[in-house]
């Protein structure tokens, strides 16, 4: 392997790795706040990538129907809950959140799609279409089960994954799509030929990480999410509703999923079920990082990106196998070195 090739593989690895890193952060956040393994993240990636490609073709992405239907279901749940408890105070705001907001976004997409908006507008529209699916999914599938065990929540996640993936097939069809690169330029840095698209991916990932860091270290809502993750009862006692924390963490995760889909769609051809495998690699990154530390999850994900790009060079048929096998030694090592701490005192 020549020096040029290894540099090229390195670039490829960092590009994919930074997307996996974003996904790993989202998975860790959702797990810490809601104890949910967020399997359906992959569908948000596919939805966003396919929606971007469709918007570029001047077509209305089918995700608007998922958004409207999901919002309707969530609103129905809110209404049923209000009827049962005979409490109406929060109902108008929640109905607005689940009916008006998705309706407005869908209307905007329907109006904008045939007019072929420019790239920035397409991206914003895709993010606006996919991000609300996070809180909606949380409201429908997870909020009613807030006290359930991790295993039950995981089973719900698998169900949500299959349902959303099926909806993806219905509304996007089985064919793969790829969107146009954000920028076609290439730069020569010494011997390295850097594509502008890679720079975009890495820069956007770094920017999101910075924003997340600021959010969690500076803003009260970020701290409220951390508080919920550290001590659920303590968070309730200061008035942080678990539903608010869950909804917010799902919104952040869905946003990150959508952004990852947008970033990866010019790089790879995306099918309705491709996102699952991508999100799974973010999950591997989080596990390599110990499933608890955000910086280590980022490093682990970059490792996954590298491993993937180098193994696709050496034996491309086994590239996925190699990546997913990498967690076995890590899990073995962790199970040997980690002491089980039962019921840790706060």
């Amino acid at each position: 392997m020549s020096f040029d090739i290894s540099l090229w593989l390195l670039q490829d690895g960092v590009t994919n790795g930074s997307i996996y890193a974003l996904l790993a952060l989202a998975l860790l956040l959702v797990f810490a706040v809601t104890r949910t393994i967020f399997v359906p993240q992959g569908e948000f990636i596919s939805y966003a990538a396919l929606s971007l490609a469709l918007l570029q073709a001047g077509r209305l992405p089918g995700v608007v129907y998922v958004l409207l239907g999901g919002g309707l279901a969530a609103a129905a749940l809110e209404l049923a809950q209000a009827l049962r408890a005979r409490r109406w105070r929060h109902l108008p705001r929640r109905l607005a959140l689940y009916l008006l907001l998705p309706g407005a976004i869908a209307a905007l997409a329907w109006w904008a799609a045939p007019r072929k908006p420019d790239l920035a507008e397409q991206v914003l529209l895709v993010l606006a279409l996919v991000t609300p699916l996070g809180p909606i999914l949380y409201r429908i599938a997870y909020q009613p089960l807030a006290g359930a065990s991790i295993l039950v929540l995981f089973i719900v996640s698998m169900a949500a994954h299959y349902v959303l993936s099926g909806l993806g097939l219905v509304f996007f069809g089985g064919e793969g799509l790829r969107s146009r690169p954000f920028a076609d330029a290439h730069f020569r840095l010494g011997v390295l030929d850097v594509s502008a698209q890679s720079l975009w991916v890495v820069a956007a990932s770094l920017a999101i990480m910075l924003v997340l860091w600021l959010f969690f270290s500076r803003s009260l809502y970020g701290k409220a999410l951390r508080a919920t993750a550290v001590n659920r009862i303590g968070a309730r006692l200061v008035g942080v509703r678990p539903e608010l924390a869950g909804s917010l963490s799902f919104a952040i995760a869905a946003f990150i999923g959508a952004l990852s889909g947008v970033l990866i769609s010019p790089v790879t051809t995306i099918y309705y079920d491709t996102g699952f495998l991508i999100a799974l690699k973010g999950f591997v990154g989080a596990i390599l990082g110990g499933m608890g530390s955000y910086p280590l999850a980022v490093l682990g994900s970059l490792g996954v990106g590298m491993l993937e790009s180098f193994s696709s060079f050496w034996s491309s048929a086994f590239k996925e196998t190699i990546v997913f096998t990498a967690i076995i030694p890590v899990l073995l090592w962790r199970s040997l070195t980690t002491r089980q701490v039962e019921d840790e005192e706060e």
Partner: protein
Amino acid sequence: MSALLEADALRVFYRRVEGLHRASLRVAEGAIVTVIGPNGAGKTTLLAALMGLLPCGGRARYAGIDLAGESVEARVARGLCLVPERRELFGDLAVEDNLRLGAFTRTRRVDRQMARDLESVYARFPRLAERRSQAAGTLSGGERQMLALGRALMARPRLLMLDEPSLGLAPRLVRDVFRAIAALRAAGVSILLVEQNARAALQVADYGYVLETGETVLEGAAAELAAHPRVVATYLGLSGQTARA
């Protein structure tokens, strides 16, 4: 006068085990009311039920509203706050962040009062000011208790429920805690105090209840209760008799 808190025949089950059988009590506005009782009597369960952390039977009214169906967070927003037995601090977060989060239900409305409230908590507990940027998980037992109390105060409680605030503290710190409780009442906060340290609790309180195996079996003005033969025999022991003499 109608009471700030009124609980009638509260009953709680942990699956099949009864945690609270029949507890009734009243807290008048501006009063310190204590609930004493042996380990396992159901004191913690009683406070958790009043806070909405556990589903319960019976009736509870607070500040003129029926508490049934009010969420924990809604109760906090109405000024019903709990300092739990296990403190439930945010160990990874800084002391100051713990305090700021204490005001979470109010922050949307008033941001400028936050700084003032923070300063008044620091004035009350200077140790917290020294450690404001340290993670809560690194504090000592006494400091954690102060932080738990300070965090609850940040919510501007109208009725503060304290679960064994003196638990595990050195005698000097116990005195500080009870002094802080008396000062809070002077500042207009009503207090429901649960204690195993019956002597100290009855000294600071206006009114008291004795809770045994999930039932409130005895009640009375704190001074009368401290002189009641059954209380003396069971909870105050020898030194209780000297107090009565």
